[in-house]
């Protein structure tokens, strides 16, 4: 199953439709960066009728799954991303009842609660302020918001060794954790 570098790494990978999109943009190293991810996601049609992702959102997505901190994603990470984003998209579609491609503040709040994020009123205000344009949140911004929240949650959870919902943060760990998102 081997073959040229960047080629299929395991049986069945070549048949995976997602691999087609990935391989089409990826370089020899089998990794894709933010630009390539943007192209890849656009071509896969994951955004459906919605406007696809801007570069900053793609960068965010990479940092969410970029475990080796390389600034790029391998195929498995890409696949994981694809499923996660699809899940969020389904959620968005549920809330975008008028099919406008945007949700409003209340709908965003409901969606976030639905996803299990426990947010204070100030946090919700900050989020909707940041991600809304004229009171509306687009699909791309919604995804960016989900990515950030998920990444922050992972960051916290990894450090919550006693699973009590509390973490003791050292200053530099806090900064590193938060600013790497």
């Amino acid at each position, binding site marked *: 199953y081997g073959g040229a570098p960047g080629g299929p790494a395991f049986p069945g990978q070549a048949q995976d439709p997602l691999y087609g999109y990935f391989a089409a943009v990826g370089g020899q190293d089998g990794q894709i960066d933010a630009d390539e991810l943007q192209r890849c996601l656009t071509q896969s049609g994951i955004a459906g009728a919605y406007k696809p992702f801007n570069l900053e959102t793609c960068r965010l997505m990479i940092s969410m799954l970029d475990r080796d*901190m390389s*600034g790029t994603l391998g195929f498995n990470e890409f696949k994981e991303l694809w499923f996660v984003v699809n899940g969020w998209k389904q959620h968005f579609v549920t809330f975008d009842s008028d099919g406008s491609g945007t949700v409003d503040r209340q709908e965003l709040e409901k969606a976030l609660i639905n996803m299990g994020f426990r947010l*204070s009123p100030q946090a919700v205000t900050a989020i909707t302020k940041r991600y809304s344009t004229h009171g509306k949140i687009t699909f791309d911004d919604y995804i960016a918001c989900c990515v950030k929240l998920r990444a922050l949650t992972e960051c916290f959870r990894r450090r919550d060794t006693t699973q009590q919902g509390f973490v003791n*943060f050292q200053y*530099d760990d806090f900064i590193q954790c*938060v*600013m790497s998102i």
Partner: protein
Amino acid sequence: PPQGFPGAGPAPPGGPYPGGPYGGGPPPGPYGQPPPGGPYGPPPPGGNAPPGVDPEAFSWFQTVDADHSGFISVKELKQALVNNNWSSFNDETCLLMINMFDKTRSGRIDVYGFSALLRFIQQWKSLFQQYDRDQSGSISFSELQQAFSQMGYNLSPQFSQLLLARYAQRSPNPSIQLDRFIHICMQLQSLTDAFREKDTALVGNVRLSYEDFLTMVVTRML
């Protein structure tokens, strides 16, 4: 026009001027090529600059305010601000700046906000130039580390590495542009303040609940 400020608008004919980004030929100022008729050009339509506003900032404001709304949006601001490599300032940095100087809470800035923003950027630009020791026009790993150290932050090399992986272009010598540098430093400042607020005993350690953590970060980082 001030020397060495990142140019705005299209690159001058013949490509980047000789002598590097900070010197050499006639670099465009932040206000573009000097308009004909002297440094301040012909009087802008609608009269002179409002009191307290630099005439050049005013004339630049009018150019950037493409729809003549009297306000500059994130999109318009993006057209006005350029890095040393001619890339536009990224959306996040522009958003951060609008939020900082938007007194009207409308998501846009007026001429006073814009004028203050230009002064703010100039200050950061000077700092950036200071830390860009090899005058390459961008900040490398070692230059970033030194910058943090000189600013008084005690952060690991891994942190600088992380920032470069996240924000620099893939290359053998990754480095960051002015817009990212400003963005990073501002976030660092804000998050440090937030941390210090909670660390009343000043031990360098805080205990946070999940909700506190999210609130703290989301209100400071977005």
